[in-house]
Structure formats: C-alpha cells, structure tokens
C-alpha cells in the first residue's frame, strides 16, 4: 500500500482534554455533523487536512470504555465495531491532558489493550510547562508501546508531526509495533499488567462467552471481558442492541454468579489499572502535582464563593437574558419585515389564487413565525458555547446542583431549564450534556413549562385588555405567570423522577476543568452547528405542519363572490369548526369558540394567538400586541347573552392555560427527534394539556364560586 485510501481514524479522549479543538485544527472547515444510527449522539467527522483519504471521526468525550451514558457507549461501540453500518476504525488517536496524565491514561490504556493502532497525543503541554513541569514523552511512549506526539492544540504546536504520524500509521501495511499488546492476556501494554492472575481467572467465563458467541475476536476477548466486567450492571442503555440473546443471557448469568460468590471483579479491575498506571507514569512527570492553587483556583475562590459567587452567577444570567431579549430585537424586527416583504412580493408576482395563499399565508408566514426566533436562539447558543468553552458551565452545575437535586434533577439541568425562558427548542437540544437518560428525559419533558418568549405577546395582550392602568398589577400578574410555570416544572420533574422515570439516584460526579480562554472561531462554529439544526427543523417538520394548519383555516372555501370577511371565512373553516366543536369542552374554562380557534391555531406557535384574534374579530391589516383596535375589539367582545368575553377571570384562566399547555409544534418535533420516538412527545403533549385544562378549570370555576366574574 503506498497511499492510504478511505481510512477512518477515530479521535478519543476524556472530556476537557482539548480533543474538539484538536479535531477542528486537524480537519479545518471540512466537517460533517450528524447522528449515530438510532441514538442522538452527535457524530462529527472530517477529512484530515492535507491527506487524500483519511477521515477523522470525533468520538464523544469519555472517561472510560466501561460506559455510563449513551455517549460513552458510542465511543466503545465504534472502537469495537459494534455499530452496524459503520466501518471499522483503522486507527485511534487518543488525546490525553498532559496536566492530568494518570486519569487520562486510564482510558488510553483501555484502548491500547484492544490492539488497534494507537497514536497517543499528549495535549496541553503549555499548561504543564506553565506549572514548571516536564513530561518525558519518549519514556512514556516506550512504556506504552505506542507512538506519542506532544501538542498544544490551541496554538497548533505539534500538529504537523501528528499529521505525519497519522499518515504513516495509516500507510504502513503492518503496524507491527502497534498491535502487539492485544493478544496477550497476562500482560497489558508493553508488559504492564492490568489484572493479576486471580482477576484473570474470575473474568475467564466472560472471556469464553465472548469468544463462544463470536462477539469479539479471540485475541482481544481478554481485555474486552475485563472492560465489560467493570460494568456495574447490564443496563439496557449501555448494551449494544445487536448482541445475540444467548450472549446477553450468558453475561447476566456470569454477573449473577460473581455476585453470589462475592467475587465481582469490577472495583478490583479499576484498582489494578490505577496501580499499573502509577508504575507507567512513575518518573515520567518530573514531579507530581502537589499544589492545587493555580490561576483557575484563584478564579474559583471568587466565582464559587458563598456571596460573590452567587452575585457573579446572577450577573452572568442577567446579561445572558438581556442579550437574548433585547439584543435580538433589531434582527427579529428585520426578519419580520423580511418575511412580510417576501409575502407581499410573492403575492404580487403570483396574483390571487389558492397557490398564492398557500405560499404566503401557509409557507412564508408559518415558517416565518418560527424563524423569527432564530436570532434569540443564536444568541442563546453563543452564550452556552461561551459558558462551556471557558469552563464556567461546570461551575453553574456546581452552584445550582443543590437546587436542582431538590426536584430530583441534576445540576446540568439548570441551563436547559433557564434557556427555556427564551425558547424550549434550544433548551431541549441543550439537554444533550446530561448523561443520565432519565434525568435528560425529565428535563426535556418539563422544559416547555417554563414561559418562553412566544408566550410573552399573549400575556401582554391579555394583561393590557384586562388590567388597564395599574402598573403594579400588570407586573405582578406577569411575574406570577413566570413563577407558575417554573414551580410547576420543578414539581412535575419531582413527580416524574419518582414515578415514570424512577431509577437509581443519578450521580453528580463531575470534573471541574481549569478555566480557559475561549477561541472566537470555535465559539462561532459551536453556535452555528447547533443553530443550524433549528433551521433544518423549521424547513422540514415545521413547514409541513404550517401547511396543515393553514389548510385547516383555509378550507372549506365559501364562494368568493359572497364576499365573506376573513373572520367569517375562519368561522366556517375546519379550524372554526374545531373551535366551535371545542366550545362545550372549553366552556367550563370560560372560553368561547373564538378563543377555541385561537387555541387551535396557537399550536403552530403561541404568539399566533394574537394575529388569530385579529382575524376572528375582523381587524384588517397587521395585528400585533400593541394594536389598539384589536384591544378595543377584544375588550368590547360580548357573548350571546351580552356578558363580556374577556373578564379578568377569563383572562387569568386563559393565561394559566397558556402557561401550562404544550401549544408548540416545534417543541413536539424536537422532542420527537431527540428521543427518536413519538412516545415521549405524545406523553408530553397529553400531560401538559391535562394539566392546563385542570388548572384553568380550577381557576375559572373556583373564581366563579368565590364571586369573581
């Protein structure tokens, strides 16, 4: 083989080891982002810059090949070629944080044992040097029996050498020096033993089962058996689907036997590896880290301080929200006028007709309703990227874990829930950082209860109609709605974690990485990758649903010559029929059919309520929440018996409904995508609708009972 063709090289490392920076450096802008089949674990790959056929695959960060989360499972399954439809990897680059060698080498030695060609990258040498230390890379490489390259990914130092080593690794037909370690059972890398004879005999049944059921080749069955044996339990989250049932049974039987004999090898295996790592790193680092006072610690002394830490935290969150709500305003206005210009332009080009109406009112207006939130979403993701890249995100989880654990959630649930005040869609996407599946689901399912910015126009118009004057009352009601959503979210999470999503208490074992200066390029890329997903979604699911909702309001057509007003057309459309059909059901909440139409149309996006009210009440022209004619029309609207439609009680009941109901197709679509099934979005829609209905019912009927009208 002269030049490497179509080789896949996996990039693996602990979280926070600089792996992503390295990946971006090595691949430049030629990256593809997608998901692994069947799971929403991000799959990122790119062509190695300057090579002809080497693809780099960026595996999720993990601490060990004994998986604790779907992310870590993917890393293991890719290396062992346990994922159908994915090519086997030809080599692995294992990135280790040089400032934290031993814990990082825990993972590296697990990979080396698998017998794949490994290139070890010792990253962040600058950090080591700044602490006045040195690492003997040659000695370390010799001991582990793998090529080793020292790098500083942030500056690019050492990357040329790394490219050369990777290419050579992929080119050489028989990387003899690299694959020697896998075969030997008694010894690990270059003679280091990761398990003594007692452990080997305890794990032997599992090794034999692996070979017998052809799960892995015989020469690596030994290390794989030790890896699997470290699993605390055979959790379905971390077991490959394609395992033959007989092997799964055999594995469970072996586990049971270990337990009943009191000889489960899991903790002894971990301990044995650390003992070996102590020998491997001995003398490689010129002295052990003894002091824990670094620049990072001095920052932490302030930002996790009882008083100053909380003050800094509040400030950061305030700035983030100010940026989201006011920083996005001009661009949102720009998009809104762009959308209406595009609608007007399309209408003038195409002339009148059903197709024009479909394009203008269905496609352009429908997608426009969602895309208008794009600037807010970009800003939110930019902040999340900034918090992550500096290392502050871990401190947010550290500071807020006590609050979240009260509701049975994880400190990492805080940012997604907070983001939900802007929009539930990015919030649900941000739950990907939560390792535990149940915690992540619980966070996703309650996130839409937080009052997002789409509810704001609804609150504003209702509060304006119902409580003219009285500023303190307006502010008080507004805040109550936000509080109601937040408290309900935490309460529902609490209940979910004790019922449907019951499981062992999740752990909060989290590294607090040193603070780092973020790189602008990486921030922008990070923000764009995530925001792009939102746009893709707007172009597919949301587009389709917009057309459906438009059709419901458009058909059946009455004879155009009858000259019906838009309000009358809407009244007899399918949407109007739905509204009137809903009337008996929503009557006890104090709503009439017109509000019913608003509720149904709000499924596209909540703020559509305002423009729908405009149509129902026959207001011509553009309608927004400050439109006085709409406010007048709604204020004066009467029921058939002459009572006002919008009494303070109806208004409160309606707002409570908006706080709690899941009227957002984007949220449903994103939950469907993130959970890969319709089960959870259906459940979410159902529980939120029931919750909203019951709460509104209590408010309205309770209000009537105590004499409010």
């Amino acid at each position, binding site marked *: 083989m002269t030049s490497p063709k179509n080789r896949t090289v996996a990039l693996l490392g602990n979280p926070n080891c600089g792996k992503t920076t390295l990946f971006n450096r090595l691949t430049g802008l030629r990256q593809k982002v997608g998901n692994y089949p069947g799971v929403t674990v991000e799959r990122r790959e790119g062509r190695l810059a300057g090579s002809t056929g080497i693809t780099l695959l960026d595996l999720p960060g993990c601490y060990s090949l004994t998986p604790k989360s779907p992310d870590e499972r993917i890393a293991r399954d890719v290396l062992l070629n346990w994922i159908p439809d994915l090519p086997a990897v030809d080599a692995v680059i294992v990135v280790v944080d040089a400032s934290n060698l031993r814990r990082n080498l825990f993972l590296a030695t697990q990979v080396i044992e698998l017998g794949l060609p490994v290139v070890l990258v010792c990253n962040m040498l600058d950090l080591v040097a700044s602490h006045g230390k040195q690492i003997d890379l040659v000695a370390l490489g010799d001991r582990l029996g793998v090529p080793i390259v020292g790098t500083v990914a942030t500056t690019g130092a050492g990357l040329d050498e790394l490219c050369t080593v990777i290419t050579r690794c992929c080119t050489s037909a028989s990387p003899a020096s690299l694959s020697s370690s896998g075969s030997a059972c008694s010894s690990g890398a270059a003679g280091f033993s990761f398990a003594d004879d007692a452990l080997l005999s305890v794990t032997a049944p599992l090794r034999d089962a692996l070979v017998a059921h052809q799960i892995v080749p015989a020469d690596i069955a030994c290390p794989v058996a030790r890896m699997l044996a470290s699993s605390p339990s055979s959790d379905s989250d971390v077991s490959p689907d394609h395992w033959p049932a007989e092997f799964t049974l055999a594995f469970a039987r072996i586990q049971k036997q270990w337990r009943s004999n009191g000889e489960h090898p899991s903790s002894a295996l971990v301990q044995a590896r650390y003992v070996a790592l102590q020998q491997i790193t*001995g003398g490689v680092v010129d002295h052990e*880290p003894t*002091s824990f006072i670094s620049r990072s610690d001095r920052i932490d002394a302030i930002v996790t301080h009882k008083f100053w830490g909380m003050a800094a935290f509040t400030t950061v969150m305030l700035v983030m929200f100010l940026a989201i709500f006011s920083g996005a305003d001009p661009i949102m206005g720009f998009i809104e006028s762009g959308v209406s210009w595009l609608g007007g332009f399309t209408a003038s080009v195409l002339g009148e007709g059903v197709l024009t109406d479909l394009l203008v009112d269905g496609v352009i207006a429908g997608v426009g309703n969602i895309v208008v939130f794009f600037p807010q979403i970009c800003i939110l993701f930019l902040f999340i990227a900034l918090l992550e890249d500096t290392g502050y995100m871990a401190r947010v989880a550290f500071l807020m874990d006590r609050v979240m654990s009260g509701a049975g959630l994880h400190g990492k649930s805080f940012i997604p829930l907070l983001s939900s005040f802007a929009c539930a869609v990015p919030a649900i996407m941000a739950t990907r950082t939560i390792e535990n599946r149940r915690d992540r689901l619980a966070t996703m399912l309650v996130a839409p209860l937080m009052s997002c910015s789409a509810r704001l126009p609804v609150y504003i118009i209702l509060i304006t109609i119902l409580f003219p004057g009285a500023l303190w009352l307006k502010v008080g009601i507004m805040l109550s709605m936000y509080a109601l959503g937040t408290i309900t979210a935490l309460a529902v999470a609490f209940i979910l974690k004790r019922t449907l999503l019951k499981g062992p208490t999740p752990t909060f074992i989290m590294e607090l990485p040193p603070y780092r200066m973020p790189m602008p390029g990486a921030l922008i890329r990070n923000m764009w990758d995530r925001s792009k997903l939102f746009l893709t979604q707007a172009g597919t699911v949301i587009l389709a649903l917009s057309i459906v909702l438009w059709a419901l309001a458009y058909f059946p057509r009455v004879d155009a010559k009858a000259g019906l007003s838009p309000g009358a057309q809407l009244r007899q459309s399918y949407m109007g029929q739905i509204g009137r059909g809903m009337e008996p059901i929503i009557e006890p909440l104090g709503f009439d059919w017109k509000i019913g139409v608003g509720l149904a149309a709000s499924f596209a996006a909540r703020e559509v309520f305002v423009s729908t009210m405009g149509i129902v009440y026959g207001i011509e022209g553009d309608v927004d929440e400050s439109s006085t004619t709409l406010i007048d029309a709604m204020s004066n609207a009467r029921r058939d018996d002459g009572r006002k439609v919008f009494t303070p009680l109806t208004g409160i009941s309606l707002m409570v409904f908006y706080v709690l109901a899941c009227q957002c197709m984007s949220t449903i679509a994103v939950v469907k995508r993130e959970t890969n099934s319709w089960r959870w979005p259906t459940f979410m829609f159902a529980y939120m609708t029931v919750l909203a209905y019951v709460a509104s019912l209590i408010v309205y009927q309770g209000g009537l009972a105590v004499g409010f009208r």
Partner: protein
Amino acid sequence: MIVSSENMPDNVSGAASDPAMPDPAMPDPAMPDPAMLDPAMSDGSAKADSDADNTVTLDSLQVGAAATVVGIHGSDASIRLMEMGLVPGARINVVRRAPLGDPMDVFIQGYHLSLRAAEAHLVYVQLTPPGASA
C-alpha cells in the same frame, strides 16, 4: 454490592461506630483489606495504620482537610468514582463546598472533582495529620 468478599474484613465495626459516620441506615461499609493497597500508591500512613478511629467518610471532612482514600463502598456510583481516580492510596483534599452546602469540590490525582455528599459518603478516607502531607 460489587465489592468482593475479601474486601470486607472484620474491622468494619470499628469504622461504623465512629461518631463521624452519621447515617445508620447505610449498609455495612465495605473496606478494602489494607494489604491490598499497593505500596506505590499509598503513603506510609494509609498502608500501615489500621487505626479505625482515623477512618471517616469523605463527606464528613472539613474544607481544607487532607486525607488518603482507603476504600469505596460498593454501589453503581463507586465504579465511576474509582475510574475518576478515587482509588485506595490516592491523596485527596477538600477544596470547598458549593454555596448551598452541596456538592463539594475535591482535589484528586491532580485535578478538581465535584461530587455530592451522598457520593462522598461512599468514600472512606484516612485523615492526614496536619502538616504531614501537601
């Protein structure tokens, strides 16, 4: 329970009666045999000294305390704790607690790790006398 039987010696009772171990509902603590500690991994005090009065759980330590890990109680969390470097013989410093009291920030194997009191309660440590260790 995943700690092997040879990891559960009789000296457990001494540790369990220690007033610093607050939760009587916890199952019997599983302590590794001091003989299992590798000399390379431990400083002298952890290896030789089996004085149980000195052994407490990590959650009971004061901020600023220095200690040596002697064992981890078996549970699903314990494997991850050990993989993160909380293995017998490893030195550990309690750096701070979060403003609301939980979780805590410890310095282990050259890096900072955050864990809840409930998880720290699984970790048995032996206090290093002040000034004896960095």
